[in-house]
């Protein structure tokens, strides 16, 4: 009994430690956003932010939003991520339904190719993609950020294939006997059964696009079109030592996702777990 209680205590201590190590950088980011430049370069280091709950508490935020348009960047990121994620939850179930329920020539071959492209690092394809976007005249638009993610969502397709294959055949048979068309079976019978996966895919695609750096860096030159992740790096390159402002920008860039995460974490984690077992 004593041994058991002891090991329980050890486990709790380790858990607290792990959680602390995981969260601390975010807390420190937040703390720095309420610090003055004086405090950031003061020795010995002081942990408590000098401007927190004092006059000028929101100075860094005011500067980041009014002088450096982080509000606009955030909106841009939202727009791009939303459209790219929306595309995936339409296109992926379509392809998945065909792979899971229909027989057609080349089905295996296309499936294998799709699976193989999952392994390929983006750097292998990015140069021809850039050239294509340039020739299409899509530089300085959001199309290069949205369209590839929209059309080439292999991960989402595989996720929906496994969901669709797990739906009882009885449901399928009933729909066919009722004479429903293939599209009706997909959108009215199968798709509604996959709400949790749809939500998860939407969130994952949204996050991936929100956090993407390479494509915005290549395709977007006009400052009014910057996404928040990319805008942050520009800001960092320009003001290397203005840590208060840089970390305030970082807070602005991660906060929307963290808020979404706090509400959806069970969804996300459970989905990751079920896709893990499949592996």
């Amino acid at each position, binding site marked *: 009994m004593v041994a058991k209680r002891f090991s329980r205590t050890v486990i709790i201590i380790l858990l607290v430690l792990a959680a602390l190590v995981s969260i601390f950088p975010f807390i420190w980011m937040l703390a720095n956003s309420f610090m003055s430049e004086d405090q950031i370069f003061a020795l010995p*280091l002081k942990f408590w932010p000098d401007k927190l709950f004092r006059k000028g508490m929101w100075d860094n935020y005011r500067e980041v939003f009014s002088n450096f348009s982080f509000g606009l960047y955030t909106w841009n990121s939202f727009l791009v991520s939303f459209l790219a994620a929306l595309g995936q939850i339409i296109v992926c179930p379509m392809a998945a339904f065909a792979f899971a329920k*229909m027989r057609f020539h080349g089905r295996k071959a296309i499936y294998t190719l799709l699976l193989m*492209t999952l392994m390929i690092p983006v*750097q292998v394809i990015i140069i021809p993609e850039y050239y294509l976007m340039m020739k299409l005249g899509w530089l300085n638009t959001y199309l290069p950020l949205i*369209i*590839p993610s929209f059309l080439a969502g292999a991960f989402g397709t595989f996720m929906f294939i496994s969901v669709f294959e797990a739906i009882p055949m009885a449901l399928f048979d009933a729909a066919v006997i009722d004479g429903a068309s293939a599209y009706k079976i997909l959108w009215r019978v199968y798709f509604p059964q996959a709400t949790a996966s749809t939500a998860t895919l939407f969130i994952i695609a949204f996050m991936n696009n929100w956090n993407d750096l390479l494509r915005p860096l290549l395709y977007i030159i006009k400052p009014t079109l910057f996404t928040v992740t990319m805008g942050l790096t520009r800001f960092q390159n320009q003001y290397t030592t203005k840590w208060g402002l840089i970390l305030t920008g970082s807070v602005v860039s991660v906060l929307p996702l*963290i808020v979404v995460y*706090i509400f959806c*974490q069970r969804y996300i984690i459970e989905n990751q777990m079920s896709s*893990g077992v499949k592996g």
Partner: protein
Amino acid sequence: MAIKQKYRWHSRLTPWILILPTLIGLVVFRLIPIVSSLVLSFTKWNLITDPKFIGVKNYTELFSDPDFWKILGNTLKITAGYVVGGMVFGLLLALLVNNRIKGMNFFRAAIYMPVITSAVAVGIVWTRILGPKYGILDFLLGKLGITAPYWLQDPNLAIWTVTFVQVWKMSGYYMILFLAGLQAISKEVIEASVVDGATPAQRLFRVTIPMLSPTTFFVLTVAIMDAFKNFELIYAMTKGGPQNATNTLVYSVYLNAFSYNRVGYAEAIAWVLMLVVGILTVFNFYVKKYWAQPLE
């Protein structure tokens, strides 16, 4: 699942209509670029004038450049460090969060949080934490009487610092994958080993870890793929420096193509990268045959 087609419930065209967008994406944004990359790696090109065919010159230049070997070495170091670190921490964390304790969801969510946040913001805040003199880590180590090294400025250390941050960011992901595997192990097997008098250590090494091997293989595959996704972190933390110490294949493709305008050369690097990924993948499947048994 076998599909018995007693009668047609869809036309021949229907599956093609359904996969059309994905097929276009596959061909236009994956297959054509992959092949073009290979072709372009045999040319001299700056994205503006016509590419000029120069045979294997990019590759011979690459292989005779000591910087390239350094960059390849860096890539292998990061990959090895990341895969081992991510998997070890992932497994340890999974064993930790696989206990029944009140509020466990909070701990899982907290440990998973770095996974969902942007590598850029993560890179920035870690640069601040690890910064010389004014960084909080050096300050705390100073209190313990330890003089901290230059985490990101020392060329020998910087690569491991970046690897550490990448491991820190992603361990929560592997934790969740391992947790799923742990929970799929039947309770009876574990209980049987307890009845047979296995010590906790024996239980872990003789029962749990062997039974986890399909998951371990899956995590290995995923971790190897993730190991190459360090562009954002390097861009935010070191820009490949100091003196190429943290430059990797993925980062140098970007540098050569979009900073130095050496597109053909960049494509040669990209194909070396492709080869490395290919070799690791094949190796992985080879290992799998001798190692992982399928889950029941």
